[in-house]
Structures are given as C-alpha cells and as structure tokens.
C-alpha cells in the first residue's frame, strides 16, 4: 500500500519530470505530430500537482482514480484519455485486488489499448507500457524496469506509426521517436524514483 506521503512525492515527481521535459516532448511531437504533447502533458500534470494535497489525502486507489480523472479533464489531446484511463484503471483494479500491482498495471495497459483501439508495436505509448508491465510482472528491479522503458522508447524509432497523428505520415514517421512513448518512460522513471 502506497502511503499518503509517497503519493504526494509521486505527484511531485511526475509533474516535475513532465515540466522538465515539456519542450523535448513538444519537439518530438512537432516532428511527427502537431507539436503539443509537451504542453498537453504539462497542463495535465500541473493540474494534478495543483491538487496534490487533496489527492494524496485519499486512499491509494482513490488517489490514482483522481489523478486519472484530472488528466482526462485537462490534457486536451489523445494522450489525455489514454493516460487518464491508465490511472483510472490502476485505481479500479487496486480497489478490487489491493496490492496486486503487476496485475493492476497489466489490466491498466490493456485498458489503454482498448481506449486507443491500438496494440503493441504501433509506435505509441503502448510500445513502452507493455514492456514495462511485463518487466513488473517478471519482478525485475526498479533499475531494470527503467532500463526496459528507455530501451522501448528507442525501439519506437524504427517503427512506422499505425495509430495517432504520426500515422498520417506513413513511412515518414520512421526514424523518429514517438512522443507518447518518451513521456511514458519519463513517468515510469519518476515512479521508480519514488516508490
């Protein structure tokens, strides 16, 4: 069970890494999208951070749902309902089976795929989230999980985008890292730094 203090530190770490990398995320999105992924993520996690006290006072599962709802309501791009669904589903699953983090994460990533009508390998955030879920299930160390996430980001470079705006570019999306994959790895790294 994650404590209230950990929740607060988590929210701060997530919003800090998003803010620190907003320009990078925007640049990645400018290359193969509409150049707003940094601003979208920052809007969302700033809003979450703005309610850090109220959210972290809630029980773990409720806090995760509150983060998800906030992201859904504030991000404004495709990544909003996707990351929102990730946190909302984590909260729902942990309500049903408290402490079974690997199963909750797996279900949450499946829910993101359902929300996006997408799958692993299409050059999206799922290309990071699925390997991370697997590493968590395999009980890998935090350092290993973070390494898996960053490797998974790098692996999006050679893929052709099949979902999201980058898919409009067809073959020209090859050679670029997916912005949502990168933000996923940043979030994973922030979580690993706190828990």
């Amino acid at each position, binding site marked *: 069970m994650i404590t209230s203090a950990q929740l607060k530190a988590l929210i701060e770490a997530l919003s800090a890494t998003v803010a620190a990398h907003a320009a990078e995320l925007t640049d990645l999105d400018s290359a193969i999208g509409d150049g*707003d992924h940094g601003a979208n993520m920052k809007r969302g996690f700033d809003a979450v951070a703005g309610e850090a006290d109220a959210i972290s006072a809630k029980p773990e599962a409720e806090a995760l749902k509150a983060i998800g709802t906030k992201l859904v309501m504030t991000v*404004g*791009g495709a990544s909003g309902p996707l990351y*929102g669904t990730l946190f909302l589903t984590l909260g729902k699953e942990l309500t049903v089976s408290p402490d079974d983090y690997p199963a909750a994460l797996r279900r949450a990533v499946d829910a993101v795929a359902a929300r996006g009508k997408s799958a692993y390998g299409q050059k999206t955030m799922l290309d990071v989230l699925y390997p991370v879920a697997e590493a968590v299930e395999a009980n890998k160390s935090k350092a290993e999980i973070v390494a898996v996430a960053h490797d998974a980001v790098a692996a999006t470079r050679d893929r052709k985008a099949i979902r999201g705006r980058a898919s409009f570019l067809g073959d020209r999306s090859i050679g670029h890292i997916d912005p949502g994959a990168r933000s996923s790895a940043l979030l994973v790294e922030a979580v690993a730094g706190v828990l």
Partner: protein
Amino acid sequence: MSNVGIVIVSHSPLVAEGAADMVRQMVGDDVPLAWCGGNPDGGLGTSVEAIIAAIDRAWSENGVAILVDLGGAETNSEMAVEMLDPARAGKVVVCNAPVVEGAVMAATEASGGASLAEVQATAEELSPA
C-alpha cells in the same frame, strides 16, 4: 424536443462553430445542436469537460450523435460518453464520419425524426469502411 441531438467536436473552435452555422442553415431549430472545440486552455485540441457540457446542451431523450474530426477528438469524445450517467451514455454515439459534412448530413436526417441509429448510419455513409 424529440429529434436526435447533434454535437460537433473539433480541435478548432472555429471549425466547430462554423459547422454549427452550416447545420443551422439546413435545419433551423428543429434539431438540438451544440458544439465545442479547443483544449482546456483554448488552443487546438479538445476538452472532455466541454464535450460533456455540449452533450448536455444538445440532449434529447432520443439520443445524441457526436461528430468529431481527428484522433484526439474521437478519443476524448468516447471518454466523455463513458463518464456520463450510464442511462445517458447508452443514448450517445460517436460517429465515424467527417466532422463538417457528417454534421450537416446527420442533422438533416435528425430533423426528419430519424432514430439515433439512422442518424449515425447517414453520417457514416460518408466514411470509408
């Protein structure tokens, strides 16, 4: 009003408002109609909160058809529908159709008293399978 309602969701508030003007020109006030566009800061994008509010403004007991432009507008609209009261959510569909042309066609169909399924099918005829 008992006709099916129409909601227009675009990344651009200008597109959404202009499409609503075109709809009004075809159907007048015969169809509940609302639009939204822009992310929560007003830039290009969409807002789940604004979509929920638009569904509310265009509410009809016979259902509401949402027309969206690109990816994020669709995902955010689907999210908005799921966040509705379940009794309402079952009466709202996100059409797989072009936003401007679909809105005009869907509203024209709705103005004749068509069902939600008919309105959706009319809009979606404009889209490749």
